C-alpha cells in the first residue's frame, strides 16, 4: 500500500490492538491470580535444577541427577532421531509404491493403490497401536527371539542390531574416506561444468563413485580392515552387545514411515503424471535408452513437482512424532510436556520452551526445503 492509510483503517487497527491488549491483560491478571493461589514458581530457574527422573533412551550422557536442561536436550535428540530414521525409511518405500501405481503391471498397480488407500484412511494412532500392542509386545522373550542370519534379533525387549566398532588404525581409513568424498564432490562439479560446455556426458557416475569410495576401501584393505562387528548375543536372560533399539522406537518408526510412505507415494504419482507424455515420446524418438529417458527427462521434471509437497510431508512426519506419548517413547512432548510439566507445574515456561523448540525445528527444516527448492528451480532454468 503506497497510499496514506485512511483514518478508518487506522481506527480499525487501533481498535483490534486495544481489544487484543485488553484480552491479554485480563488473561494475564487471571494467570497471576491463579499462579499465586496455586503457589507455582515462575522463571526459568528450574532448567538448572536436577530433573530427578530417568529417561529410557538417551543418546547423550544423562542420569537422574542431570538438569532439566539436559533432559530437554535428550528428549529433543530422541525426537530428531525418530524423525530422521522414519524419513529415511519412508522416502524409498513411498517412491517404490508411487512408481508401482504407474507400473504397466496391473497387479502391482492394484497392490500399490490398496496400500495407499488402506494406510491413508486409518488413524495413525491406531496403526501405531497395531504395530506396538499387536505385533511387537506379544513377541517371544529374548531366549526365543526371531533372528536373522544370527546377527539381528527381534524379541519383546526390542530390536538388536550388529554395529561396526572401529579398532586401532581406523583413523587412516576415515581420513582417506573423507578425502575421497571431497575429491568426488569436486570432480562432480567439474564434470557437470564440462557437460554444460561441451554437451559431452562423460561417465560421471562411475568416476564420482570410484573417487568417493576408492580411497577409503583401499586404505581399509591396506591397514588390514581395522573394524570388527559387535554382534548382539544372548547372555543370561537378555541380549548383550550390538545396538539395542527399544520396542517403542521400532513401533514408532514402523508406524510413521509406513503411514508417510502412503502420502509420499501419492506425491510421486502426481509428479510422474505432471510430466507431459510428449516429453517421453520425444525422448524415445531421439533414440534415448529407457534408462536415459527416465534419468534425464522424466525424473528431473517430476522432481520439480515432487520436492515442495515432499518437504511438507517430511514436516508432517516430524509433527506426527508427538504421538510417541501414546506408547511411551521418550520424545520431546512426552518428556517435557508430560513429566517435566507434572514435576514443575510451571505450565507457561514449559509450554513456551516446548512450542519454541518445535517451531524452531519446523522453521529450520522449512527454510532448508525452500532453499533446495529454489536451487532446483534455478537449475532447470
Amino acid at each position: 500500500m503506497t497510499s496514506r492509510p485512511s483514518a478508518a483503517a487506522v481506527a480499525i487497527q487501533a481498535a483490534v490492538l486495544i481489544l487484543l491488549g485488553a484480552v491479554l491483560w485480563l488473561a494475564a491478571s487471571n494467570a497471576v491470580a491463579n499462579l499465586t493461589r496455586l503457589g507455582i514458581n515462575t522463571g526459568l530457574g528450574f532448567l538448572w535444577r536436577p530433573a530427578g527422573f530417568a529417561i529410557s533412551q538417551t543418546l547423550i550422557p544423562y542420569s537422574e541427577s542431570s538438569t532439566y536442561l539436559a533432559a530437554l536436550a535428550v528428549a529433543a535428540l530422541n525426537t530428531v532421531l525418530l524423525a530422521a530414521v522414519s524419513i529415511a525409511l519412508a522416502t524409498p518405500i513411498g517412491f517404490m509404491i508411487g512408481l508401482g501405481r504407474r507400473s504397466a503391471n496391473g497387479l502391482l498397480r492394484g497392490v500399490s493403490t490398496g496400500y495407499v488407500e488402506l494406510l491413508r484412511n486409518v488413524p495413525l494412532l491406531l496403526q501405531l497401536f497395531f504395530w506396538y500392542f499387536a505385533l511387537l509386545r506379544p513377541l517371544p522373550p529374548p531366549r526365543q527371539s526371531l533372528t536373522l542370519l544370527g546377527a539381528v534379533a527381534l524379541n519383546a525387549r526390542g530390536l538388536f542390531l550388529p554395529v561396526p566398532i572401529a579398532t586401532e588404525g581406523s583413523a587412516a581409513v576415515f581420513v582417506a574416506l573423507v578425502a575421497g568424498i571431497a575429491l568426488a564432490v569436486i570432480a562432480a562439479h567439474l564434470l557437470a561444468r564440462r557437460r554444460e560446455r561441451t554437451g559431452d556426458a562423460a561417465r560421471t557416475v562411475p568416476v564420482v563413485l570410484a573417487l568417493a569410495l576408492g580411497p577409503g576401501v583401499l586404505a581399509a584393505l591396506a591397514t588390514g580392515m581395522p573394524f570388527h562387528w559387535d554382534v548382539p548375543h544372548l547372555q543370561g536372560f537378555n541380549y548383550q552387545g550390538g545396538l539395542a533399539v527399544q520396542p517403542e522406537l521400532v513401533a514408532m518408526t514402523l508406524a510413521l514411515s509406513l503411514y508417510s510412505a502412503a502420502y509420499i507415494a501419492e506425491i510421486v504419482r502426481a509428479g510422474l503424471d505432471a510430466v507431459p507424455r510428449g516429453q517421453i515420446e520425444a525422448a524415445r524418438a531421439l533414440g534415448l535408452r529407457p534408462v536415459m529417458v527416465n534419468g534425464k527427462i522424466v525424473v528431473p521434471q517430476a522432481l520439480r513437482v515432487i520436492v515442495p509437497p515432499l518437504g511438507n510431508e517430511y514436516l508432517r512426519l516430524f509433527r506426527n512424532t508427538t504421538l510417541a506419548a501414546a506408547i511411551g517413547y521418550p520424545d520431546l512432548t512426552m518428556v517435557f510436556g508430560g513429566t517435566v510439566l507434572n514435576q514443575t507445574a510451571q505450565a507457561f515456561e514449559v509450554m513456551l520452551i516446548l512450542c519454541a523448540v518445535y517451531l524452531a525445528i519446523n522453521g529450520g527444516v522449512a527454510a532448508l526445503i525452500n532453499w533446495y527448492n529454489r536451487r532446483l528451480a534455478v537449475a532447470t532454468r
Partner: protein
Amino acid sequence: MTALEAPLRPSIGARASRLLHGCISSPGNIALTLALLLLAGYVLPPLVGWAIVDGHWGTGPEACAPVDGKQKEGACWAFVGARWSQLVYGPYPESEHWRVDAVFALVLAAGVALLSRSVKRKGLIGLALILVAPPVAGVLLAGGVFGLPAVPVSRWGGLMLTVTLAGAALAGSLPLGLAVALCRRSSLPVIRILSVGYIEFLRGVPLVPLLFLVMSILPLLLPPGTDLPLLPRAIVAFILFNSAGMAEVFRGGLQAIPQGQFEAARSIGLSPAKTMALVILPQAVAIVTPGLLNVAVAIVKETTVILIIGLVDFLNQIQAGLADPKWLLGDQVRDSAYLFAGLVYWAVCFGLSRVSARLELQRERRG
C-alpha cells in the same frame, strides 16, 4: 455432454486383455506377477480363515474362552458384540441413549444433505447447519433444559465422543478458518500480520503439544475458580489447530479467483462485503470443498489423539475393553478389536476422501 463428446470407453474385454497383457509383457513382469500372486496366496486365505471361517460370533467372553486349557484360534467378534453399547455410547446413561441416536441421525442427515449430488442450495444449508446443529446437538447431549436430565461431560464416551469432537472441531474451525483467511488478505497491516502469525504458529506446533498447551494453560487464564472439564478444553485445541489448516485451504481458493471478478463486482457498485458474500465466496467455496473434506478426514483421524489426555473416545473405549480381565483371553481378541476399529475409521475416511476426489474431478472436467 453430447454423445460425440463422451469419452471413448474401451469394452470390458479390451480392458481385461490389456490388464492381462500388462502383467505378462516381459520376463520381469511375469516374475513380479508370480511373486505378488504368491504373496496374496500366502496372506489372504489365512486371513479369511482367521476372520470368517474360524471367527467366534457369540455375545460374551465365553465364546472365545479357551476350551480344556487350549486357546481358541480365530477372530473373536464376540468382543465387539458384547461391548457394542460401550463402544458406541461409552458411559452415557442407558435410558438416554435415544439422545445420542438423534445426534447421530442429525450428523448423518447433514452429511447426506451436503454431499449428495441432487440437493440444491448447499451453501445456505451448510451455513444453517454450522449455526444451528452444534447448539442443538450440544443441548441434546448435555441436557439440563427442556426437561432433559443433565448428563455431565465426564459420562460422554465411545463413538459418540468421537463424533461430538469431530463435529465440534469441524463446525468451529470452518468459520474461524475462513475468518483468518480473509484477515490474511486484509489491506490493514496489523490484521494481516496477526493472522499470519496465528497460522504460522498453529501450523508449526504439532497437535499433541498444542493439546497439552491448552490443557495446562487455558485453566490458568480463566478467572480463578472456573472449572473447565477436559472435553471443552480438547475441543478448543482441536478448533484452533484445524482452523489454521482450514485457513490455508480457503486461502488457496481465494487466490484462485481471477482479479477480474473483484474488479467486475466493484464496477457494478457492490460494496466490499457484498463482493465477498455474493461473488467471491460462492466461487471460492466450490473450489475449496475437496480441500475442506480432506481436512475433515484429517480431523476424524486425529480425534484418536485425545486418548493421550485420558478422554475415552472410540479407540480408547476399545483399549479399555481389552484391559478388562474378562477379555484377557489371548491375542486374537485384541487383533479382532483393532481390525474392527480399523474398518470403522477406514469406512468413514475412505468414503469422505472418495467424495472429495469425485468433486475435484468434476471441477477439473468443468475447467
